[in-house]
């Protein structure tokens, strides 16, 4: 068995997991499982921005593969599928595993319409949860649609997260202010905060604290810092609009 191929495949699976929001220990474990399946020992070091994996061959030679993680989103299905692949890996041969990994990587997720409604009603239901009235629900649903279109149009460009979130926050605040001034909504706060839930790094803060308690201080600090800066850019984006108008 060619250990280069195995290493490449295993690290690719790990990369898919990491890019889509998995924890570092799950990534390292999955890479190990894939290696063990073919009789090799692979040890990895995964961080939020890269993976270094080393495979040990029968001849006691080591090969290392280093991958950088440049974009991170949250795709729970991809994590689930890679994990499932790892669990059932004994059933498949090398070609099948490679193809499955390829398929998982190229999965597009839900379609345009589904995502559109999801963004709209996610913003809307949070507005309701925070005490908004039906007209506020409508207001933030509209903002949710705007935000989805905004994200979609920028997704093909490699723009940094802080700018995207900051501008998104400005858009939300602007629309919220606009709707309030024209009496389309009753409570500007609930609409803005409800829509803002689409951007806020609440998940990141919680995961950061979780990582630290788990012992992975690097990941914890990295996530925490990112969450802090995203929150700052959100506040700046929003504060900017509120100050001008």
């Amino acid at each position, binding site marked *: 068995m060619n250990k280069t191929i195995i290493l490449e495949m295993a690290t690719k699976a790990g990369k898919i997991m990491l890019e889509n929001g998995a924890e570092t220990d799950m990534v390292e474990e999955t890479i190990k499982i894939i290696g063990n399946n073919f009789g090799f020992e692979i040890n990895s070091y995964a961080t939020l921005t890269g993976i270094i994996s080393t495979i040990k061959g029968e001849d006691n030679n080591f090969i290392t593969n280093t991958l950088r993680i440049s974009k991170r989103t949250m795709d*729970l299905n991809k994590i689930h599928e890679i994990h499932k692949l790892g669990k059932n890996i004994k059933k498949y041969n090398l070609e099948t595993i490679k193809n499955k990994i390829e398929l998982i990587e190229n999965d597009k997720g839900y379609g345009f319409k589904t995502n559109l409604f999801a963004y709209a009603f996610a913003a809307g239901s949070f507005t309701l949860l925070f005490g908004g009235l039906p007209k506020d629900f409508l207001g933030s649903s509209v903002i949710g649609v705007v935000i989805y279109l905004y994200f979609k149009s920028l997704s093909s460009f490699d723009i940094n997260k802080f700018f995207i979130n900051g501008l998104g926050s400005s858009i939300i605040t602007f629309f919220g202010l606009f709707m309030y001034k024209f009496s389309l909504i009753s409570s500007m706060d609930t609409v803005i905060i409800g829509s803002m839930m689409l951007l*806020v790094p609440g998940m990141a803060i919680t995961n950061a604290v979780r990582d630290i308690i788990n012992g992975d201080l690097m990941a914890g600090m990295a996530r925490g810092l990112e969450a802090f800066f995203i*929150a700052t850019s959100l506040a700046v984006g929003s504060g900017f609009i509120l100050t001008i108008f």
Partner: protein
Amino acid sequence: MITQFMYAWLATYCFSIIFNVKGNKLIFSAFGGGIAWIFYYISTSHYSSGISFFIATFVLTIYSEIVSRYLKTVVTSILIPGLIPLVPGSGIYHTMLSIIEKKPMEAFFKGIDTLNIAGAIALGIIVISSTVKIFKDIKKRSN
């Protein structure tokens, strides 16, 4: 309270779609979010906010561990969407906004509050997942 559950359920369901959760995991994760929110909501009338978030996350993590085994998926598939109604998104935002509006005392208190909530949530997760890990290890050793 039913309406609170419904809103939290819907919010979690929508976020699960945004996170590309597929199949029947969607409905189960949505229920997780609703249940978590209800436990938080009920707890706030008896306990402080920290304890309330802890209880809510504690219940949610137990729910996620059980459901994920039934659905044969990773715990985080159910846990992460379920946390969405609880995570202190508005807290973070308000903290930063207070800083920008030059209200440092307000920012400080909101910030501490936000960290407190994040910590309570993290603790709720850690307690259950550590317990589960211990059980798994015991099971592995006795085999």
